[in-house]
């Protein structure tokens, strides 16, 4: 495991890590707001909306993420009639799969966060004259974020590792380049280096969320 060898595989591994990070960012940035939207739907007084949201959460959490990714990358084009229009870039298709899956988990987390907020908060807001929207944005959501933060941090770290599932739909990312190097050079070093890169990414995330949790402590 010479330094020379490691620096020679660094370039492709970092290129793979870039795909991993970009996927992570796209999925986080889209699935958090989508998840919140689904939470609001699930809480809606319009029954069909709530029903759709609950079913959605149930399906996305009740089936393997891998199945969903394969479905979006390779399954959609096989649909009768509309399938021919659904041949999209595999990376995009995989991102859609990740976003839809993670949104369901985030929706559940946010729903739990909302449930933990005392109804006195809504009543105090109402008697002070805040509108529904002002109550949500100024009173409820900030408190929900505090409650949801640890679970969101957990999911985010899981997501970093789940991006390795891109391997299964043949989008080259960190694990793919490591595996390629291992096969070519008959050495375990690329796996170790890839592992270290994943650890660095999760470390940065962990520190980021620790800092956020501190900011949302309200003491």
């Amino acid at each position, binding site marked *: 495991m010479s330094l020379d060898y490691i620096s020679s595989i660094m370039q492709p591994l970092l290129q793979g890590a870039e795909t991993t990070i970009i996927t992570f960012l796209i999925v986080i940035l889209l699935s958090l707001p989508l998840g919140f939207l689904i939470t609001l739907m699930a809480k809606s007084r319009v029954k069909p909306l709530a029903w759709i949201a609950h079913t959605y959460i149930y399906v996305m959490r009740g089936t393997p993420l891998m199945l969903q990714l394969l479905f979006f990358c390779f399954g959609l084009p096989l649909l009768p009639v509309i399938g021919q229009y659904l041949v999209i870039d595999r990376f995009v298709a995989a991102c859609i799969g990740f976003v839809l899956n993670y949104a369901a988990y985030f929706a559940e987390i946010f729903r739990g966060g909302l449930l933990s907020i*005392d109804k*006195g*908060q809504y*009543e*105090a807001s*109402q*008697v*002070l*004259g*805040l509108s529904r929207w*002002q109550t949500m944005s*100024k*009173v409820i959501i*900030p*408190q929900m974020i*505090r409650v949801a933060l640890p679970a969101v941090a957990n999911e985010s770290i899981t997501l970093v590792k789940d991006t390795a599932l891109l391997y299964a739909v043949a989008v080259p990312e960190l694990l793919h380049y490591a595996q390629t190097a291992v096969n070519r050079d008959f050495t375990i070093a690329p796996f170790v280096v890839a592992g270290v890169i994943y650890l660095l990414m999760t470390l940065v995330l962990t520190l980021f969320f620790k800092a956020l949790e501190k900011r*949302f402590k*309200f*003491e």
Partner: protein
Amino acid sequence: MTSMIEIHNLKKSFGNLDVLRKVNFSVAPGEVVAVIGPSGSGKSTMLRSLIHLEEVTGGSIRIQGEALVEDGKYATPAKIKSITSRMGMVFQHFNLFPHLTVQDNLELAPKTVKKENAAEIRRRSEELLAKVGLADKANAYPANLSGGQKQRVAIARALMMKPEILLFDEPTSALDPELTGEVLRVIKQLAEENMTMIIVTHEMNFARDVADRVIFMDNGEIAEEGTPEQIFGNPQLERTKSFLSRVEIMG
């Protein structure tokens, strides 16, 4: 002179449980009314109906002559909002916003609802915090306050909206006994400044001391009302007497 509050034949049921049955009373400007009565008699429900935290099933509520609900029919949402904005409410469990400092708790509603000038809001929040004796806690979070301090912040927060009527639902029931005094003193001071108030309370001594009128509620109706001297000194009904002797033994 028009009454501040006038309620007529107020009815409220939860399912087939009649919680309020034909409640009638009125409150004059500057009057302090204490509401007493056994648990489950409908005191909170009556108070919460006034500020539209509960929807009644029948009867009328008029605030300064304007109908919030007339014969069971509610005004338009805009009208409801304008009528209820003249009232403030203080809850048993304070309901402070835990994610905001004391100062931000006071300033949130004026800033978002009234859109007043920030300097004026700041001046008033400082003045009110001083008034409730918490000027040094402006930057503290509710989690770091005692119960008595929290309730004083809640009173200051309600006052920020310049209400003409203040409603209190057992403002000291969640407090340790040694902390009730500081809250009651603030309420008493408001009474001396002629704030119109309805106070649901289990503190009989306080009711005697601060109220102009005492209402005894029992089983969803006003069983007896009168001056503190009448109600505490010479109650007419057997159930009033028995309630008073029960709380006196307890307290």
